[in-house]
C-alpha cells in the first residue's frame, strides 16, 4: 500500500486535475461546472497558503538552530530575523483575524518602513550591477556579440535625451527596432517555450517527471 500511496497517489492527483481543467477549458460546459472550475483554480492558492506558513516556520526553525548553537558570526543575525519574523507574523495575524487586514497599524509600520524600502532598494541595486556588467561582461568576442552591442547602444540612445542631442534619428530607429525586429526575434523563443511547457505537462501526467524510480 505505501508504494502506491507514496508513488502513484500524487501522480493521480495531478492527472485528475489536469484532465478536469483541460476539459473545462476546451469544451463548452454547463454553468455550474464552470463555477466549479473557477473554484478549483482558487483551491491552488488556498493550499499554497498552508505551504507559505510551513515555509515561514521552516525559516524560523533554521535560524533558531543557529541561535541555540550560538554559531559564531551568525546567531546574532538570526536573532534579528527571528524577532522581525515573529513581530510581523503576529501583527499580520491580528490584522487578518480582526478583519482589518494589512491596514493594522503596527503591521503597516513594519511593511511601509522595512519591507517596502528594502524591496525597492534591492530592485534598484540592479543599476550598479548593470554598470559593472556593462564594463566587464559586455565583451565583443564574435559577430553576434557585436550586433548585440550596437543595438543596445542604439536603444539606450533612443530612450534618453542624450541620443536626441547627438542625432535625432536614434529614437525612431530604436522604436522601429523594438516594434519589428525585436518582436520577431522573440517569437521563436516563445513558440519553443510553449512546446516545452506542453511536453513538460505531458511528462508530469505520465509520472515521468520529479520521480526517481531507483
Amino acid at each position, binding site marked *: 500500500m505505501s508504494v502506491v500511496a507514496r508513488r502513484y497517489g500524487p501522480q493521480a492527483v495531478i492527472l485528475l486535475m489536469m484532465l478536469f481543467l483541460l476539459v473545462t477549458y*476546451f469544451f463548452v460546459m454547463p454553468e455550474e461546472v464552470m463555477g466549479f472550475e473557477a473554484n478549483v483554480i482558487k483551491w491552488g492558492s488556498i493550499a499554497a497558503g498552508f*505551504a507559505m506558513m510551513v*515555509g515561514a516556520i521552516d525559516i524560523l526553525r533554521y535560524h533558531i538552530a543557529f541561535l541555540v548553537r550560538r554559531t559564531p558570526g551568525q546567531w546574532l543575525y538570526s536573532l534579528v530575523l527571528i524577532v522581525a519574523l515573529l513581530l510581523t507574523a503576529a501583527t499580520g495575524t491580528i490584522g487578518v483575524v480582526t478583519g482589518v487586514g494589512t491596514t493594522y497599524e503596527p503591521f503597516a509600520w513594519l511593511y511601509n518602513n522595512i519591507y517596502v524600502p528594502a*524591496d525597492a532598494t534591492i530592485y534598484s*541595486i540592479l543599476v550598479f*550591477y548593470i554598470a559593472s*556588467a556593462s564594463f566587464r561582461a559586455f565583451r565583443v568576442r564574435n559577430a553576434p556579440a557585436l550586433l548585440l552591442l550596437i543595438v543596445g547602444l542604439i536603444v539606450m540612445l533612443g530612450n534618453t535625451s542624450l541620443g536626441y542631442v547627438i542625432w535625432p534619428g536614434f529614437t525612431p530607429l530604436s522604436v522601429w527596432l523594438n516594434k519589428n525586429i525585436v518582436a520577431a526575434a522573440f517569437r521563436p523563443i516563445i513558440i519553443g517555450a510553449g512546446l516545452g511547457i506542453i511536453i513538460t505537462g505531458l511528462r508530469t501526467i505520465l509520472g515521468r517527471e520529479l520521480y526517481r524510480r531507483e
Partner: protein
Amino acid sequence: MSIKKFISKRSVDSNTIGGLALVFAAGRGVAFFLLLILFVLGYYYMKSAERGKRYPIRRIRAFEAVEEAVGRAVEMGRPIHFTFGFGNLYSSVAPQYVAGLAVLSYVARLAGKYGARLIATFGVPEAIPIVEELVREGYRSAGRPELYKPEDNVRYLTNMQFAYASAVQATLIRERPGANIMVGPFYAESLIFAEAGSWTGALQIAGTARETQIPFFVLVCDYVFIGEEIFAAAALASGDPAIIATIRSQDVGKLIALALIILGLILLPLGLNLGNFLFI
C-alpha cells in the same frame, strides 16, 4: 470514469439530443487539436524509446558544462550552488519550476558521485517537500547518503522576490561556490545572481524560458540555456531515454509551426489570412 460519461450526464441545454454535448469553446478548437497531436506524439515517441528506438539530440553545450562545473568545484574544494527561482507552483510558470527541479535532481546525483557539498536555495514554499526528497535521493542513489544534511543542502529563503534575491546574492558571496547553476523562471533578480556569482569566480550556467531575462544570462554567464533549452536540459537530466524521446514531439511541434507560417505566407497574397483560421 471516461470523460464522455461525465459530460453527457451534465448535458447543457435542450438541443443536445441525449448523448454527448462536446461543443468546442469559442476559438479553442484548433488549439485543442494541436495539444492533442503533441500529447499523442509525445506518448508515441516515449513508447518507441522504451522499445529501444533512440533519437539523437544536437549538442547542448550548456548541459555538457554542468558535469564539468561540478567536477571543477570539487577540485577547488568549493560547494555547488543551485537555485530555481521564487513564487508559487499554482502560477502559470509551473513548468519552468519542474524543469529547474529536474536539473536540480541531476546536479544532486552529480554532487553525490563527486562527493560535493550542494546548496539548493529557492523561494517556492510548495516545493519544499520535493526539493528535500530530490536532494536526499540524489546523494543516496550515488551511494553517499551520509553527505545529505537538510539544513545545509536545502534552503527555502522566502517567496518574496527581493528578500529571496538579497539572501541568494549573500549566499553566493559568503559560501563562494565553485559552480553556480540557475535554471527556472527568473524575473528582475536574474542579473543580481549572475553578477554576484561572477565576483567570486564561480563557473555559471543559467537558463530560463522567461524571454525578458535571457539577455542578462547571455551577457554575464559562461553557459546559457535559451528558452526551450531548459526543457530539453530537464529531459536530458533525467537520463531516461523514454523522457529524452519526448523532445522529438517538441520538434514536430516546431515543424508544424513552421509549416503553418510558410503556408500562411503563401496564402496571404491570395487574399486569405491563415491567422484568422487558427482561432476557430
